[in-house]
């Protein structure tokens, strides 16, 4: 093996060692990583030439230059000194950490609510369902807590800062950047519906719920109801009750206005009536006698079980999507506040 090859192998091995020790955020940026390692190599060659005193550097000079560069771990450590220590997670990542915990807590509540809705719909005993729900929530959150804490401790150790997430996200967007377009002023988008629409939803919920509970048209339909729809009025009353709860929550949201934490709390609370609605819809699916017998008697030729099944499935899917929608709103509120403009897009179209 000639001197040049051996020197090359030594330098490459050093670069590999440094690369191994570097934090993930730097390794993720391939161009910057390559540039950094190349710069280290340039330095090694410069130093080797100096040590060789004017002649071509030999392996021993390269070896000495590499030794003088210092320990790869120490070089990499310089990148990890970013961030102010706060317990095991840096102060800069702390808001992201607790937001992630809150978010995972809400997700675990949401998943438990959906599971609960299915069990209630099937007609399992309520006591057991609630007991299970608390246990499931606890286990779900405990796992999420452990995973998120481990992740953030690692990210803090590697000197990750919030702007690295942003930078990485921007780099992801770049290849798909659109052609420059004529700049048009953007209207700020709102994360939440306006107070007016919440007020409307609240009033609709209260009125509809009231109608279903007190049933003012009972005298018209009474003979029909008593003959064919055993249990259906109770089901309607329950649906009405859920509408009223949802309406009260929406009404409160309209009154709260732009109070971030309260809005988020009520968005979480709104998951409860939505999941109850889901349970009631599923009740129709698991207990077809509630509605099918009556409808089959009126529409003899129709495939009532299939129609009910389809409606229930659509209703259930919409309810679940609604719950995830609330979750998305909570997250958006946390990240963007009540209104935001698509700044990234504005910036991108500025590039010539």
């Amino acid at each position: 093996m000639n001197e040049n090859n051996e020197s090359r192998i030594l330098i490459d091995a050093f670069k590999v060692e440094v690369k191994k020790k570097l934090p993930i955020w730097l390794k993720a940026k391939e161009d910057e990583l390559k540039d950094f390692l190349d710069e280290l190599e340039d330095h090694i060659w410069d130093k080797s030439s100096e040590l060789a005193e004017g002649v071509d550097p030999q392996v021993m000079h390269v070896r000495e230059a590499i030794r003088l560069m210092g320990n790869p771990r120490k070089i990499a450590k310089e990148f990890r000194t970013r961030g102010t220590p706060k317990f095991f997670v840096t102060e800069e990542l702390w808001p992201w950490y607790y937001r992630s915990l809150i978010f995972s807590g809400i997700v675990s509540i949401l998943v438990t609510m959906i599971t609960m809705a299915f069990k209630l719909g099937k007609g399992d005993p309520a006591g057991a369902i609630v007991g299970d729900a608390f246990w499931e929530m606890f286990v779900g959150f405990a796992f999420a807590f452990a995973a998120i804490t481990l992740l953030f401790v690692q990210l803090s150790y590697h000197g990750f800062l919030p702007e690295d997430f942003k930078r990485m996200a921007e780099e992801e967007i770049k290849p798909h950047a659109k052609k420059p377009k004529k700049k048009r002023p953007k209207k700020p988008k709102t994360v939440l519906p306006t107070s007016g629409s919440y007020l409307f939803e609240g009033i609709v919920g209260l009125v509809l719920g009231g109608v279903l509970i007190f049933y003012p048209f009972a005298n018209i339909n009474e003979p029909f109801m008593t003959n064919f729809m055993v249990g259906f009025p109770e089901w309607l009353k329950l649906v009405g009750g859920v509408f009223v709860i949802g309406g009260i929550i929406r009404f409160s949201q309209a009154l709260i206005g732009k109070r971030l934490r309260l809005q988020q709390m009520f968005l979480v609370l709104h998951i409860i009536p939505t999941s109850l609605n889901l349970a009631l819809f599923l009740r129709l699916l698991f207990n077809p006698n509630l509605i099918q017998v009556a409808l089959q008697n009126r529409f003899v030729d129709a495939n009532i079980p299939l129609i009910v099944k389809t409606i229930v499935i659509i209703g259930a899917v919409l309810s679940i999507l609604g719950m995830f929608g609330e979750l998305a709103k909570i997250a958006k509120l946390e990240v963007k506040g009540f209104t935001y403009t698509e700044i990234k897009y504005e910036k991108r179209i500025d590039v010539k």
Partner: protein
Amino acid sequence: MFRNIKTYREGALIEDEQIKSYVESFESELLRGISTLSALSIIQRHPDEGIYGYQLLKELEQETGRTLIIEEGTLYPILRKLERDELVVSERKDSGGRPRKYYKLTTKGTELYQHMVGFFSKLLEAITPLMDIEIKLPEKKFIYCPNCTNKIPQEAEVRFCNICGLNIEGLSK
């Protein structure tokens, strides 16, 4: 700096592993900020052509009489951080048959550098009575902003400190 102590007598205090580790860690903490400031000082001397890492280390060693030594490999993460913070810009240029990365101060870097030097100078001056050392700042050549310690040349025709905006008109000219 500690790596300059190549030998020590048997039984010397520095032989104790705990003391050695304490001194190393103390010096490393103290040098962290000073290394950045010193690197910026060298870079600002090359406003037109810029300077590459190896050359920077050489100048630093010469200027400080080999007292301030940045471990060679650790200079580059410092330069990366300065670049990320937009205090310096870099450009790859051919020099001596090899492409090298040259660093130059940005306008923001130049302004912040003056502030950092001002702060460091005033800090040193302030702690002199505690340590029985003497430091004389060139107050005839520079004004040190009383609000933010920014270092401003006396001959500069400026009314306001460019860092904090304090009206410095009439201050010791």
